[in-house]
């Protein structure tokens, strides 16, 4: 059982990541293993343009995730009050950005927001908007799944005790949904950090997210520099996810 897992896991998932990690410390790679150990790529990947791109990515991902979480949660809460058929329509609408290729979503947003009064093209907001649209589906899906599992007895007990619907939402429902909300936030953040295809069509020169930089570096043949930037991207994402998961365990143990 373990052997099967390793045979599948190593070549498919672990090896490529290890290769990137190896390459990020190398100057040559002509044999089986990389050679010419150096940390020079990391010096380049953690300052100047790369550092700005990292900040850009983090800001974009955090903002887009918060937007997506708000919109997705709101929609899921609203949909819960709808009739079953209407709820299905709403669910389908929210899955649309996932079903449509992200290149198409990028193009659609480019076309839609290039004209006044919705002129976002050329600003950071077009990137953030695109990311929010792309990840809202995941936020919506995980929150509505959690809502469906939430025992209506809590809400009813709160209402019978005299709590208005708003009070019930803030004091009972959202706290009970917190574990799912943080899980959704982590997922949205990770997806946004890695988004490239829609971003490529939209990013203005002063708002270059990290994946674009990785792509640019490898495109011009600087594989080792690109690897170092990719490792930084990976590490930053993992660190944030780790922090989010700590919040989540605290929330579910409360």
């Amino acid at each position: 059982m373990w052997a099967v897992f390793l045979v599948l896991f190593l070549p498919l998932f672990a090896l490529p990541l290890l290769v990137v990690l190896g390459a990020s410390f190398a100057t040559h790679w002509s044999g089986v293993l990389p050679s010419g150990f150096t940390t020079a790529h990391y010096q380049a990947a953690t300052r100047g343009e790369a550092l700005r791109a990292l900040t850009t990515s983090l800001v974009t991902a955090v903002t887009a995730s918060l937007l997506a979480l708000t919109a997705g949660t709101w929609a899921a809460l609203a949909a819960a009050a709808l009739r079953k058929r209407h709820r299905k329509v709403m669910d389908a609408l929210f899955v649309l950005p996932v079903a449509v290729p992200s290149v198409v979503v990028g193009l659609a947003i480019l076309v839609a927001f290039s004209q006044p009064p919705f002129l976002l093209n050329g600003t950071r907001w077009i990137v953030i908007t695109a990311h929010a649209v792309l990840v809202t589906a995941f936020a919506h899906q995980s929150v509505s799944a959690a809502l469906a599992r939430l025992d209506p007895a809590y809400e009813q007990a709160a209402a019978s005790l005299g709590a208005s619907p708003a009070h019930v939402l803030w004091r009972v429902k959202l706290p009970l949904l917190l574990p799912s909300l943080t899980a959704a936030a982590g997922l949205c953040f990770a997806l946004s950090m890695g988004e490239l295809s829609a971003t490529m069509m939209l990013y203005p020169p002063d708002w270059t997210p990290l994946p674009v930089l990785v792509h640019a570096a490898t495109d011009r043949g600087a594989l080792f520099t690109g690897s170092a930037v990719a490792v930084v991207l990976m590490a930053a994402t993992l660190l944030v996810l780790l922090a989010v998961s700590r919040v989540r365990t605290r929330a579910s143990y409360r």
Partner: protein
Amino acid sequence: MATSAAGGIRFDAVTVAYDGNVVLDALDLTVAPGEVMALLGPSGSGKTTALRAVAGFVRPASGRVHLGDRDVTDLPPHRRGIGMVVQQYALFPHMRVEDNVAFGLKARKADRSEIRARVAEALEMTGMAAYARRHPRELSGGQQQRVAIARALAIRPAVLLLDEPLSALDARLRSGMLAELARLHRELPEVSILYVTHDQLEALTLADRIAVMDRARLQACGTPQELYRAPANAFTASFVGSANLLPVTVGGTGGVTLGGTRLAVGTAGAAPGARATLCVRPHLIGLGDGPNRLSGTVAEIQWRGATHRLYVDVAGHRVMADLRELRTPPALGDTVTLHFAPEDAVLLPAEAAGEATGAAGRPAGPAGDRTGPAGDPAETAGTPAGPADKPTDPAGTPTGPSGKATDPAGTPADPSDEPAEAVGHGC
């Protein structure tokens, strides 16, 4: 906020339907201030729906719900000012016990000092003061139940709704909590309690009056003693306590005949020649010679510690008899003679064919099997059943302290119901 000064609940022809499926049919019922009313019935009988209509979680298709002197039919749940305890407790898992209990007061924006005092009082009353800082998951089922009751009582509701509050507890805890609930009600005599249960023992122990529900309808309503000693129909007889229900024909000169056997029982109001159902409680049947003899063969014997239950086939009908433990019980297949006193039998209107089997199929279940070796609830009540006062007369159906005049015409007619059957009357 919405705490009503006057207590009491009044259902005024309340009908609830889901997708055209009637789950509560024109319920007329009044719970007086300070009264404990049990809604007793099998699952799907509409009893929980009735409670949810009071709480505001279902909207009646027609009819009105009154709390005290307010018509609350159109009010959302949070404006009704009721306390409610449900089967799964529904304590907020993310709050400590004290915050759970304070929830209703905070929602009403009560003063801090008042909240503290009332939370302490409610926890004291339910014996949970020592657990104020715990989280619900750190409590046992019985403790969670107490907290749920404390939470409902903290808002000082005029009406307390209890939805199968003990069914998640094990048997020993359940009887303890029953005594606890009875004590709480003595301490809060002005609170009306609507208690939904499928357990006749809980209803008999706790309730001032019992409303028996079946198939979306109110079947009977009265004090536990009235329902037990003079049930209005076969369903009530079989669901409140266990009962032998024997199809008989009313004789010409008083008395009835079962198969070919003449039995002397009161037949007040019944026309000679009419079909009727004779109800005799198993513990009121004796072994050996006496008045109203029934002979048959023993089909089954169950030893229950203090009693023996005999199942005797009499003229094609199975008769249950609960006898004080016999030194030499009869063997299977023996022919035995049973008897019962004329005043211990109640004559009920005959059921429509479909219903008779349905109701008669049920009796042994709830009563016979759930009660322990001590036997039937009648023994809890202690007194032998007295002479039935005009059981077949609908006017004899008990009305409670604030009983509303019945209006049989106001309830939709169900073709399967015999007109004589006192079903669907208000209470």
